[in-house]
Structures are given as C-alpha cells and as structure tokens.
C-alpha cells in the first residue's frame, strides 16, 4: 500500500513537470497532498508492537518504558524493572478495576489476574476503558483484548466467575495460590490483591480469601452518589480486616432508611472512579516498588476536595476466625520484627559520621529523641484527624457478647429433616 502511494506521488510529480500550462499545477499539487495524507493514514493502521525483553532507559520515541525508567534517574524508584516480577490480582473489572488494570498494564506490570462475571453494557459507557463495540463481551475478555494491544509484555489471565459462591471461591483461592509465574516467591502466587468490587458480599469474600492466605490487599470503593471514594490497605493481622468493623448501619443502630433513598439506581462518574483508580494504583506502585509512604487509608470527598487519612488496628473481637489467627501470629512475631528494625536503625546510624553539625549553638536548640516523640504519638493516636468522628464505641468499652448457651445436643438426623421438609413441600 505504502509503495503504491509512493509511485502515485512520483507519477504526479513527473506529470507536474511535464505540464506546460502552469495553471494546471495547482490541482496536481492538491492531488499530491491527498496522496501524502493517505500515506500517513496507512501508517497509522494498528500494528501490534512486539514484546520487549528488557526494559531500557534509552530515551527514544520507540521505547515504551523510557518515561517509566526515568523514575530511577530522578531518584524516585531504586529499581523500576522489578515491576516485571510482580503479579497483581484485580477483583471486579468495573469503573475502578478496569482503569486500574490499564494503569498497571501501561506501567509494565509482570502479570495481571482479572476477575469478573459480568458483561459489558451500554450503561457502563459513562465510565472509562470499555468501548461501545465491546458491549455483550464479558468484562474480562474485553479487558484482555484491550490490554494485550496496549502492552503485550504483560501476562494476562482472565477468570470469569462469581467469587462469592462456594465453587467460585475455591477456584479464586487456587488461582491466587498458583505460583507458576514466579516459583521462588514466598507466600501466595500474587504480590497484591486489589478489590474493585461494588458490593459487600464480594468484599467479604476477598477479605476471607486474603485472611486465609495471609495475603496483603487493597480495598477501593466509590460511594453510591458518585462524589466520594476511598482506598484502604489491609495487611492480615497487622491492620483492620474488612470484617473487623461492622457496617455503619449495623453498629450504630440508626435507621438504615435515612442512609439510602429507595428505588434510586447508583450514580457513577468517570471522574471520581478515575481518581480512586489513580489513588489505588499509586498506592500499589509505592507498595510494590518501595518508594514514598504507603497510605493505610485514604478517603476522597470530591465535594470539599477533602482527603482524610487514618490507620485502623485490627479488632481483637473480630468475627472472622482467620483474622484472629493472623492477629495472633503478628503478635508472636513482634520480637523478631523489633530486632530487625533495631538492626536496621543501628546499621543506618553507623553510616552517619559522628561530627557536630553546628560548632556553636547560640539559641540552645536541642534535638528531642525520636523514640520519645513516638511514644507520645502513640498515646494520642486515638485522636482522629480533623473532620472525622467515631461511630463505634471503643473496643474495650463494648460489652463482651454473652457466653453462648450450650447448644442442645441435636439428636435428629439431617436426612430425616430433609424428608420432613420434602413431605411439607409435596
């Protein structure tokens, strides 16, 4: 095609020169311009780029990673290329999950596991990522189609089932355990799970799986009125799990009807979802590539542009058994953790040369020991940042649940009960 167009252009060029009447050159020039445009168009026909073996920092237009590798030169990330070793699972490929998947794909993540059982609908088009021609495809297939084109280096796995059913949950767990991508990795087969789902049941299922696998994960959400959202880091045993704090309506006993208007379908905005996806993936990159401060919780209130942050400790009375086990393990591992932190501090202290920073100290400025500040901080950490109020009583104040009555020994047989119900059904 390109050669044909070039020949055409050359023919027009020779025609132009052979013309004796200069007034005819104008239309020929115009024709040549059209041919040039067609040539450019033919070049932009989608071509899949080939896979890249190593991430290069070379600054050329054809290098898809030059701007990312520049993070190393700028001193932000120590070793960006490590990103190719990481696996991230994204549960829920909706308004937040799909955008997060695209961001990680463009960043050159090693492997993405995508979970969703829904199909793309026209009603999704007010959000980013999916295109109208993908309507009817499963969200996982449509996502793989787009993401594989954007970056063929990423290993993409799509899982199309409901993780809240017993069978779906088992498949979900085994896919997270699968270590074929990096057999030497400790723990599960993924480095991080991102929950981008839109309902309580699915969040509880992700929470259950991550607590059982001792898998760090991040939760994200956008409010039903589309004007606020949040992200949260959950490290089993170390931070609060999703079941540690019951939902607001359950804990506070307020009338749930004041919280939700009946018959209103949930609103959504591409902006809020894009912001939350951005916050989520930024936190993910900081967590994986070890730079900056990884936020334990970050809220986003778009009406006031308010971003509250806070930390949540696990609930010692959490209803999730696996969470309690992880909490126990975390407490047992405390001495080892302290020793490691101490060793690290000492190693850092050794590298600092002991010379007085200032020869004179006219104003008697003294530096207070950091340890002291920390203990002061710990006692006042119950204070919430401005703009937040507690809805729940302190864990120590809440009354212990009454001791369970000894269950009456059940003498009846399950099959017998089944028959009784069937008899009533007939």
């Amino acid at each position: 095609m390109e050669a044909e167009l070039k020949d055409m252009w050359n023919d027009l060029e020779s025609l132009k020169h052979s013309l004796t009447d200069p007034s005819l050159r104008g239309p020929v020039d115009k024709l040549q311009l059209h041919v040039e445009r067609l040539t450019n168009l033919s070049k932009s026909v989608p071509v899949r780029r080939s896979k890249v073996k190593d991430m290069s920092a070379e600054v050329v237009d054809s290098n898809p990673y030059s701007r990312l590798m520049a993070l190393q030169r700028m001193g932000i990330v120590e070793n960006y290329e490590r990103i190719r070793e990481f696996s991230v699972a994204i549960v829920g490929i909706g308004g937040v999950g799909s955008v997060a998947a695209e961001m990680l794909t463009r960043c050159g993540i090693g492997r993405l596991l995508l979970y969703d059982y829904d199909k793309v609908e026209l009603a999704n088009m007010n959000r980013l990522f999916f295109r109208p021609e993908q309507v009817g495809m499963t969200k996982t297939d449509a996502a793989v189609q787009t993401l594989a084109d954007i970056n063929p280096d990423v290993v993409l796995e799509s899982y199309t089932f409901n993780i809240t059913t017993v069978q779906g949950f088992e498949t979900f767990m085994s896919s997270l355990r699968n270590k074929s991508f990096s057999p030497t990795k400790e723990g599960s087969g993924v480095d991080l799970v991102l929950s981008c789902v839109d309902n309580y049941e699915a969040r509880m299922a992700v929470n259950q799986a991550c607590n059982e696998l001792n898998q760090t994960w991040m939760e994200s959400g956008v409010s039903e009125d589309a004007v606020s959202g949040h992200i949260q880091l959950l490290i089993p045993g170390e931070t609060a799990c999703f079941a540690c704090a019951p939902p607001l309506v359950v804990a506070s006993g307020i009338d749930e009807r004041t919280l939700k208007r009946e018959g209103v379908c949930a609103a959504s905005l591409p902006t809020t979802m894009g912001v939350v996806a951005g916050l989520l993936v930024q936190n993910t990159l900081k967590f994986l590539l070890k730079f900056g401060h990884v936020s334990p919780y970050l809220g986003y209130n778009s009406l006031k542009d308010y971003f509250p942050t806070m930390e949540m400790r696990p609930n010692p009375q959490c209803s999730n058994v696996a969470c309690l086990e992880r909490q126990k393990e975390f407490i047992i591992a405390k001495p080892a953790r302290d020793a490691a932190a101490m060793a690290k501090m000492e190693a850092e202290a050794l590298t600092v040369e002991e010379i007085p920073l200032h020869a004179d100290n006219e104003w008697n400025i003294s530096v207070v020991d950091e340890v002291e500040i920390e203990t002061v901080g710990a006692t006042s950490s119950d204070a919430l940042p401005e703009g937040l109020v507690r809805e729940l009583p302190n864990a120590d104040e809440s009354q212990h649940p009454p001791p369970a009555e000894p269950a009456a020994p059940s003498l009846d047989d399950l099959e017998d009960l089944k028959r009784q119900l069937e008899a009533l059904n007939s």
Partner: protein
Amino acid sequence: MEGWDPNTKSTLTQIPLLTTKAGPRDGAAWTQRLKEEYKALIAYTQMNKSNDNDWFRISAANPEGTRWIGKCWYIHNLLKYEFDLQFDIPVTYPSTAPELELPELDGKTQKMYRGGKICLTIHFKPLWAKNCPRFGIAHALCLGLAPWLAAEVPILVDSGMIKHKDDTTSTSES
C-alpha cells in the same frame, strides 16, 4: 423492626432462631447449621400452612446444601402469580445473607440486580447483619422475599410487565 406489619412480626417470633455460626466450608459445623436451617424452614412452612398462608417451596439442590431451588407465589386480585426461586449459600455465610434470585423477572424491574437477584439492600440486609448468626434461610424468605413480592408483584402486574399464566390472549380483562 419498626415499620414492619404486626403479622410479619408475630410470624417472625415463631420461626426458631439458629445458633451455629458456620458457613459451607466449615465441615461438621456446617452440617449442624444445615440441621438448624431445616428445623427453621420446617417450622415456618408448617406455620404458613396452618395459617392458610402457604407461599413457597424450597429444597436443597445439592447434597452439601449450598444451592437451593424452589417456587414462590403471590396472590394479587385473586390470581396466583408463581415464580422460580433459587439462590446459593455464599461462601461468607452467615456473615452475608443469601442473594435470593427470581430469574424469570430479570430485567423486568429496577428493584433487582443482574441475574434476577432481588434487591434486599435496604429492607433486609441491615436486619440480617444485626441478627447474625441467628437468622437463616427461613428468615430471609420471611423478611426478605415476602415483602419484596408484596411490593413488586402488584406493580409488575399493573404495569403489564407480567401476565397471569391463564391470560394468554392479548385481550386483558380486569
């Protein structure tokens, strides 16, 4: 519980409460829970029959008792409208309630999630969570499905979205 009619309240108090907090992955404890589920369902069905208010059939579709299928019906203007009823026991049960599905009504009402899952978010899920693990399948039917049918079936019939099975011709008589 304010806002519920006295009939539902009195029915509810007669359905036996459950005690075992166990989900389908909890082995023997789940079997125990399943027995309690059956006892509550049997008591509720018997109560409905004796009060001449029989309105559903449900039975386990697999030996593990994690999938349930059956029928439910609602009388509107002296006509009986019957629907298939199905649901899975979620893996996080009983912390999360079962999502009751009426697949035949999928796409016919806004008060429904994809796949025919009826919307329980407002009127039932907070109650379920507050009463975990004492509520079971029978309670979900009594407090989740029954009020949904009572609210939605008349609207669906009056708006012409569903027709009575005998009303096959297009001439609808009132």
